[in-house]
């Protein structure tokens, strides 16, 4: 057995350790593997990993607390704005969509129009204002997050998209890439994330502010890697409300420019 083969075996052993740790993470019991009985000794690598996990958990908890506080503040702010000056819809396309001041780095694509249902004749109309009824409970949007060289948020684009009444698991990555956003808001993004979201309309981002907020949340969550879509699946699932399905596609700069020309 030469050094190369031994190196390979050591790396494989390390990967199996990772695999076993993740399997134990799915269970509430103690780890069943070799480490549980090997004289009680932990390897230095394991100790480092435990420290790293503790730091990441602390960071994630701090982030969650900050986001919760920010969310409550945003909600209170929106409530006070709503009570003092109710928004006036200037056209049908703007009804049901919250008015948020546009930011410079956001390029907004109008969302699908909610269907308004007229009250039947003879119905007693109460003092509450009419509520727009959306045609279907589940809708879908696609969020494009453009990142700069440092990996930070550069700009976002939001577009509604129907997947021909299919569920997100049935959507192929190439279909996600082919969603049209019109003119991209970044000419040479280093890395772009395409995120398809499906769920109740009230849970989906419908404005620039909510799209930016979601993008910032996803990018700011701790993650173990930065390359492919799988690296962002965990952060994305933590940033969206319950009941929202997520599918992510990661696009590098070279292929992205080609896709945009479609």
């Amino acid at each position, binding site marked *: *057995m030469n*050094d190369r083969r*031994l*190196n390979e*075996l*050591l*790396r*494989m*052993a*390390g*990967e*199996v*350790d*990772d*695999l*076993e*740790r*993740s*399997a*134990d993470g*799915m*269970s*509430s*019991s*103690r780890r*069943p*593997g*070799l480490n*549980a*009985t*090997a*004289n009680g*000794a*932990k*390897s*230095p*690598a*394991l100790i480092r990993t435990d420290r790293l996990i503790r730091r990441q958990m602390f960071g994630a908890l701090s982030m969650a607390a900050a986001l919760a506080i920010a969310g409550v503040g945003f909600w209170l702010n929106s409530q006070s704005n709503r009570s003092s000056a109710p928004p006036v819809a200037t056209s049908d396309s703007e009804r049901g969509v919250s008015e948020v001041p546009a930011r410079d780095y956001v390029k907004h694509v109008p969302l699908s129009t909610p269907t308004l249902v007229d009250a039947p004749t003879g119905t007693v109309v109460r003092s509450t204002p009419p509520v727009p009824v959306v045609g279907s409970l589940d809708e879908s949007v696609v969020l494009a997050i453009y990142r700069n060289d440092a990996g930070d948020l550069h700009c976002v684009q939001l577009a509604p998209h129907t997947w021909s009444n299919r*569920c*997100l698991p049935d959507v*192929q*990555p190439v279909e996600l890439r082919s969603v049209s956003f019109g003119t991209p808001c970044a000419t040479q993004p280093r890395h772009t994330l395409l995120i398809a979201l499906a769920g109740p309309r009230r849970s989906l981002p419908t404005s620039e502010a909510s799209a930016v907020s979601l993008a910032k949340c996803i990018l700011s969550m701790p993650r173990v*890697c930065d*390359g*492919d*879509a*799988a690296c962002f*699946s965990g952060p994305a*699932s*933590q940033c*969206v*409300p*319950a*009941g*929202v*399905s*997520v*599918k*992510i596609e*990661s696009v590098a700069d070279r292929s992205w420019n080609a896709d945009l020309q479609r």
Partner: protein
Amino acid sequence: MYRVSSGPKDLPGQPGPSPTLAELTRRACAGDHAAFQDIHRRVGPGLNRMLMARSGGREELVEEIAQRVWTAVWKAIAEKTYDPSRSAITTFAYAIAHNAWITHLRRFARDKGYVQGLPSTQGSEVLDEHVHPAIDSIPQILAEAELIDRVRICLHDQAAAGLSDLEREIVSAIAAGEGDRALARRLGLSSSTINVRKHAAYAKIRAFLGVFNGEPNAQPPGANTGSDRSTP
């Protein structure tokens, strides 16, 4: 698709702490389908992450390989070709996945013409062929998994191979993918010292593995041979 989950789920009808993987393996080998499903639920995500990292996020390929890997694991359990006393179920599943992935890479290189002199294949038989050898050569894969488990013993049981603290630190770092130079910087030692200690550790590990392989010149490096593993 990723859906927000409400946390780890336990098997229905099994309140309290979840059983260990070793216990689940024992039950699965006795024909308990639910135990096998629980093994798949616990080990599957990690295996998928590993394959996703290797494939660069190709979900369709990962799903296809993972599905066939678990079919092979179940088949090996059902046909009693998997021996839980020789390898942990995680190591066995990993070894099958690793084998399937390596075979896929070889097939891919052959089809792309990176490897000269090999015939190209087209269509669905590519995927079939790159996984089927993994299914057909279970005894070899089990032997590989057994070897990996013995290396893991070296990493975690200091007495097994007789490694010193520094040697154990070095091989653990190599197992975690850390390079010699980075390790030397971190430990404040020269690269040559790291290299010497690494080769000393390798010699001890070889001797430890040689005892298992029945090599005539191999000397038992320690009293503990790892026979007290809880995971088979």
